[in-house]
């Protein structure tokens, strides 16, 4: 059990970092607008996973005072990162929605989704 939890922790941190890097790569190198938005969204997910993992306590319980858990405050996982992530997910959703609607506008205006063909403004 102990060993399983160790591996799980490494896996969570590893996948969080991997997601951030994949997202950065996608957002910075891809030419398609949709893929850029996807990259941003993946990077956000990675950061959210990282934040949850940071607040996690090995073998801890949910941060709720209930029957049988009255004196177990030191075994509870940190609730603040969870609250922050909830807010951050909503914000990320909003940004993605605005980005996709802008992509639609850009497509209608330029008839292309390639970012290197949209250069009416000086980049």
């Amino acid at each position, binding site marked *: 059990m102990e060993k399983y939890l160790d591996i799980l922790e490494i896996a969570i941190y590893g996948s969080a970092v991997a997601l951030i890097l994949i997202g950065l790569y996608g*957002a910075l190198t891809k030419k398609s*607008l949709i893929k*850029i938005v996807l990259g*941003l969204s993946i*990077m*956000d997910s990675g*950061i959210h996973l*990282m*934040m949850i993992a*940071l607040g996690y306590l090995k073998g801890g319980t949910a941060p709720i005072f209930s029957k049988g858990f009255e004196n177990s405050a030191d075994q509870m996982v940190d609730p*603040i*990162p969870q609250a*922050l992530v909830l*807010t*951050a997910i909503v*914000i990320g959703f*909003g*940004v993605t929605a*605005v*980005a996709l609607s*802008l*992509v639609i*506008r*850009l497509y209608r*205006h330029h008839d292309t989704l390639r970012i290197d063909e*949209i250069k*009416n*403004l*000086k*980049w």
Partner: protein
Amino acid sequence: MVGSPVLFVAIPLLAAFLIPLMGMIWKEFVRIIPGLVLAYMLVLSVSLIIYIQSHGTIVEVISGWGPPVGINLVFSPFSGALTTLMTFLGLLVWLYSHKFKRNVDYEPAKKYFILLMLMVTGSVGMVLTGDLFNMFVFIEIVSISGYGLTSFFVRRDSAEAAFKFLLMGAFASSFLLIGIMIIYTQLGTLNMAEIAQRMPQMDYHMKVFSLIFILVAIGVEAETFPLNGWAPDVYTQAPGPISAAMSGIVVKAAVYANIRIIYTMYDLQGAYEYLLIIGLITFIVAETAALKQERLKRMLAYSSIGQMGLAMIAFGIGTKEGVYAALFLMFSHAIIKSLLFFSGSYLVYNKTSKYIKHVNGMGKYLPITAFLFTLGAFAIIGLPPFMGFWSKLALLSAAADSNLVILVAVILVVSIVEAVYYLRVVNRIFFFKKRANTKPEKPTINAMIAMLSLAAIVLVIGFYPDLVTGLIERAADDLMDKGRYIGEILSKN
């Protein structure tokens, strides 16, 4: 106490979401409600400023959770002065755009005013909040409404500018989240006062690491040098009053966040030098870039970036005179640049490309607007007896007091560049012949009132700078006194 700082966030947020409902009852409500709300906020913040002079800083605890745990709003002389400035500018932006799209359509005006209210909410919230994560949320409110407002005109290239802004803003918000996360894992708190108090315990490398992430993130909104690529495009493509609101309200809030983090939260050696150098680079690059611009609003955008660079230089000097000069610069820049954006938008009104050559000969057809633009141009260059003169003088004397003679020389030389490109436009307005394909557009009466009141402030403060210096000096004292800020908030527990 006449009201509480919570109202600065709650009322505009409520109004923003009530606007579409009230619009169903009577369409004019959509245009009237924002003005009423902003006027109320202005009255409230002026009366709170008077209140805190005798009673000290107001720390508002939200929902009964004391400062280290819950969210708190701080109305100190510094944040109060900025709140007053922002609500005043918000009111003028509303006044200027009151008749906006009146003859065209109901739907765009509704969205415009909702987003404008959200933008003011976010900026005021950023200034008032005492919680780091709360600041992140407000920054996101400002950015998302900013994306929407930038892409407002469908026929221009506005979606492109907005997407560029969004790309940088999304990266910035991710970085800010990482920075906040590092601080939280190291110190276990998000309250800015408690972070400031416990900052010496933090590991040095983690400190530098988190500061870099946070500064990069906020630097995007604050238009610092390598991160300001969005600003010229956004200012060109957004509606005129929104350009004014961006440079006058949003960027001021971001600079506040930057300064609060460097001055209050961190105790790092070299952070002031960072501000000084990055401000100097921003100032020089932006002013020389402005010189070669062919579009009026793009030129104004680069000038706005340059002025923010000046404010950063002044903050980077690090003495009390420097902070005083920086706040004075922020104040005068907000007023003057709004005047320039307001009047400049009318000078190139009928052309979507907004080239500088379109202002040719407008002095004959739009005498008052052209005169106001000229007034703004003279003021921002720093000619006496306008407001810009006193702020630049304060900066130069602060630099001279700290023995930074080279800095004084560089600022003066770059100011000549600034004078050249502004006077070039003024020359075109008055001494060139009007181009055949440009059509002068008379400003509406509301826009005229907004511009005239800004011009009156520029002139009155130019002749009687004492009217505001006391206020700014108290704000500077407040910012420099880190121990008092921490004490005032944490004693509320």
